[in-house]
């Protein structure tokens, strides 16, 4: 179970978070070795547990520039199995395209993770359960969530490093929109837009906070993301057990100020650390990998101001 109200802590009661940046210039690199070595440093409680990798599969992507790259997903899957996980499922509930099979086949996921019927779950058509929300940033009191997510022992949010035309960025917190089932809320999950995207991100993550985040920043997307932007080679994987801290680090890598990103600044109140001083930054230094991303005009205010 990934939700627990005791994860909702104000920053002053929360221990320092750890975020690791690893260099990986190409998807052909030995990603499994990079991830396994990094995951071992976190000493994660996954032995004998069911792990769910919540990838970001948005739309058909034969060029593999929109979705979490299948090589990263496969490397994470193998790494968790090598750490002793009893099972590792890959899952997502795409927001706009109902045909999840078309999406995952377009990126040849089957060749990376094996038979889809055994290893992939379309969360949009999963059995659902009504769950009371732990915060009430939106006016929603409860939401339906997929049983596959609710039943997982350990959930990993695996977004791609991208800008987003409504939310500014789409990283590990925004990625959790994909657990909201289309069979209850439609395609798109428009109730989340009407509730306010930032507030909905907070309510979803406060209720089902991912245990870990792995961000595919080997090639990100800048400009009009999440689907119509421009590929942005960045050469990094960003990992950590505090999704807010991971997203804040990613934002800094993108040349964006996390404190100006509405959903991140709100999430920092209860869900994790935003301030650099509260994040133990391991692996590569941000300054060494920082790659400023182009953003749409209405998000220019998010850019880190240079003195």
């Amino acid at each position, binding site marked *: 179970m990934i939700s627990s109200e005791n994860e909702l802590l104000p920053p002053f009661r929360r221990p320092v978070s750890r975020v690791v940046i690893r260099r990986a210039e190409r998807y052909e690199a030995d990603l499994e070795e990079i991830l396994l070595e990094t995951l071992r440093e976190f000493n994660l409680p996954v032995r004998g547990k069911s792990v769910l990798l919540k990838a970001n599969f948005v739309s058909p992507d034969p060029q593999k520039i929109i979705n979490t790259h299948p090589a990263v997903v496969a490397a994470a899957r193998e790494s968790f199995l090598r750490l002793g996980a009893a099972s590792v499922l890959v899952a997502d509930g795409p927001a706009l395209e109902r045909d999840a099979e*078309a999406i995952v086949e377009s990126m040849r996921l*089957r060749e990376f993770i094996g038979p889809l019927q055994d290893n992939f779950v379309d969360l949009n058509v999963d*059995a659902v359960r009504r769950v009371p929300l732990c915060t009430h940033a939106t006016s929603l009191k409860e939401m*339906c969530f997929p049983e596959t997510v609710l039943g997982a022992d350990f959930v990993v949010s695996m977004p791609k490093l991208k800008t987003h035309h409504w939310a500014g960025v789409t990283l590990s917190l925004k990625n959790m929109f994909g657990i909201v089932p289309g069979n209850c809320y*439609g395609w798109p999950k428009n109730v989340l*837009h009407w509730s306010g995207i930032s507030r909905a991100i907070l309510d979803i993550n406060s209720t089902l906070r991912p245990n870990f985040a792995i961000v595919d920043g080997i090639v990100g997307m800048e400009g009009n993301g999440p689907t119509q932007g421009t590929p942005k080679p960045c050469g990094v994987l960003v990992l950590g057990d505090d999704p807010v801290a991971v997203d804040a680090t990613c934002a800094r890598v993108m040349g964006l100020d996390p404190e100006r990103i509405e959903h991140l600044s709100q999430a920092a109140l209860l869900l994790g650390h935003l301030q650099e001083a509260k994040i133990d930054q391991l692996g590569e230094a941000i300054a060494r990998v920082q790659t400023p991303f182009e953003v749409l005009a209405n998000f220019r205010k998010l850019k880190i101001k240079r003195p």
Partner: protein
Amino acid sequence: MESFRERVCLRALLEAQNQDGGWGYRRSSQSAVEPSSWAILALAGAGNLQGAGAAVQNAVNWLRSVQLPDRSWPACAGLPEGCWVTALAGLALYEQGIAEEAARGAADWLCSTWPAEGAVWRRWLNRLTRGQRVVRIDLSLRGWSWTQGTSSWVEPTAVALIFLKRMYAASAPSNVAKRIKLAEAMLYDRMCPSGGWNSGNPQVYGVAGEPLAGPTAWALLALQNYPERQENRQSLEGLVSAASEMRSPGSLAVSELCLAAYGRKISSLPETLEVAYDENRFLGNILVTAWCALALGDPVDWLCWSRAKEHA
């Protein structure tokens, strides 16, 4: 020898029916209105397949049992609020020629339910912010939303139109006829610049949206009364072209259902679906299984009403 449709699709539907009479989106999952409605429609066309009649009757009973007091249907049993699947449940019941009162209730609910962008304050706000909007659509044209209190989108609008047009044919009362006209205009407004439809954003930040197979197929089915319109022809050609590259069974099946209404078909559909089934077992998706069963059967009048009328 049994065809793939009978051997795999129809049998899978029979075997996956829940004890309560409904179907989940996947085998053994909680019964839901959308897969149950499509399974009813698929099995009702199964000829004399053993067990199909009883399965349909049980499913109809389940559907009627989960209709809400306001005569709408929720996505799954136990959810408190009706939504877009009301049109599908109404269609499934109407086409069986039974439970007409329940189907009429569905139509009444649909015609009295409006998407949220129609609220007066919302229209006023939209007028004020017209210059700043990043999505270029005409918000005065309204269809149906996925859930109550949200905006109109292509697929729920198309499915509601299919149901209402089937139910009332040429004799819709004026309030229904007006609603149909408004929703048709909304669909044309939401068409992508290159033809076809996605979920309902033809242009965001000045960038043309890409059409998707599902929404294009449903919209073209809902608008099949206008086969000569340029928008229909352009979208149909786009779908035909896209279908030649499709490998996913869900998209292939709904495209075939649509093309049948326009007298077209996808070549080698049975073989392609068999390959897709061998690869991924349709991901165990009951909805896809029902669509494939329908797509592999003869074209059905309730989905191809324009052509059925022509032939009559």
